[in-house]
């Protein structure tokens, strides 16, 4: 196996920064889209505040459809959108759009699951006290679900790190791109290995942060 530490050190930091940039911007945007969608899914679900069977089923199916789509295909399909919005379809900034849209349905399900865990009794109490739906969501539902939402956010971030690596296959930049361009096309397993280790470290750090934060929130109760 070739080993050129100098070259690795010259490529890795830039690629790692690109991956971090793609991950965090995409996660933020995916949450912006997915959080309201997840709340709406929970509210209209059979056990929710305002069960609406037809609406829930339609949105639920759409979310499943998007989630079962192979991400790499979804990315290619959404490329024209990137071109339209930021006038390029190559590089970290360009893949942020497919990444965010691709991860949004995932976020929606994570949020729905977190909200479904909230004790029904305290929602009943909030309803009996004459809260509006919006007050229940803002003052009871979301605060009660916060530790689960934080765990979900960590899970989402990790999923998106995986997606950014895939985005490398279509010229997205970052660690995945590095592994494919150098490791795969030029047989540089040392660079692939370095990229994989960097991704693993990122995933572990996010996981750790999620666990600590969620645990910290629970300890305050």
């Amino acid at each position: 196996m070739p080993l050129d530490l100098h070259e690795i050190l010259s490529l890795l930091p830039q690629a790692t920064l690109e991956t971090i940039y793609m991950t965090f911007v995409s996660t933020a945007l995916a949450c912006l889209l997915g959080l309201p969608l997840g709340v709406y899914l929970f509210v209209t679900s059979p056990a929710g505040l305002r069960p609406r069977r037809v609406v829930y089923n339609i949105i639920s199916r759409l979310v499943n459809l998007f989630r079962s789509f192979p991400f790499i295909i979804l990315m290619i399909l959404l490329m024209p959108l990137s071109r339209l919005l930021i006038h390029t379809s190559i590089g970290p900034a360009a893949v942020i759009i497919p990444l965010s849209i691709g991860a949004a349905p995932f976020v929606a399900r994570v949020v729905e699951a977190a909200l479904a865990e909230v004790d029904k009794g305290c929602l009943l109490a909030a309803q009996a006290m004459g809260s509006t739906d919006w007050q229940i969501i803002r003052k009871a539902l979301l605060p009660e679900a916060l530790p689960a939402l934080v765990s979900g956010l960590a899970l989402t971030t990790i999923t998106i790190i995986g997606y950014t690596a895939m985005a490398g296959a279509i010229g997205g930049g970052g660690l995945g791109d590095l592994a494919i361009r150098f490791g795969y096309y030029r047989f540089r397993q040392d660079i692939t290995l370095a990229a994989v280790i960097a991704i693993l470290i990122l995933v572990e750090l996010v996981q750790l942060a999620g666990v600590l934060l969620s645990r910290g929130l629970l300890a305050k109760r």
Partner: protein
Amino acid sequence: MLRLEKVSKQYAGLQVVDKVSLDIPPASIFGIIGRSGAGKSTLLRLLNLLEKPDSGAVYLGERRVDTLSGRELLLERRKMGMIFQNFNLFSSRNAADNIAYPLEIAGLSRKQIDLRVSELLELVQISDKRRARLRELSGGQKQRVAIARALAAKPQVLFCDEATSALDPQTTRSILTLIKNLQKFLQITVIVVTHQMEVIRAICSRVAVLEDGRLVESGAVASVFAKPKSSAALELLHAA
């Protein structure tokens, strides 16, 4: 204070509440008793306007309330407080912030809320627990927080849904005494829903007995206890 007129409610083809008429006098403690499955919970949800009857009418004071919707319905609900078997407090909030919830949704200022919360903590005798997290509180203390929360917005009616069923006998007595004293002090209407005859005996002046969704007996607690007319009342008396 609260009046039901031939109220019925079905769930999935089952007649859960069957033409119940009930007149709950103001400023008293009224008991609703029945075995599990007798329709108590549904009747309660009809009284506190979480559920609309299929037929019949619900009056709060002189006003018909079962036909209300939207904002008006929410405002009527805010005139009623409720406590539960499992307390149903918000675990994301400490004692004081739980009590503050109904005041927040009513749009009071932070200063007004703090003042009112202090009054309420004193009223339920847990002023020292103001900043306590829920898990630092005993069952009895949690129910006191819940009572303070239920009374925060100065309701006319307090519903107690099996409020002492999860508590030990000694704590049950202290909570019942508190409810009794608060009723006298605030002159509110208290409606106690329970399957425990002792609870009715301890604090209620009048009682209604439910069986299979129907009202089988009602009257002053003393007379129902002395001469039960229905088999349901008889059975509940024997179980106690």
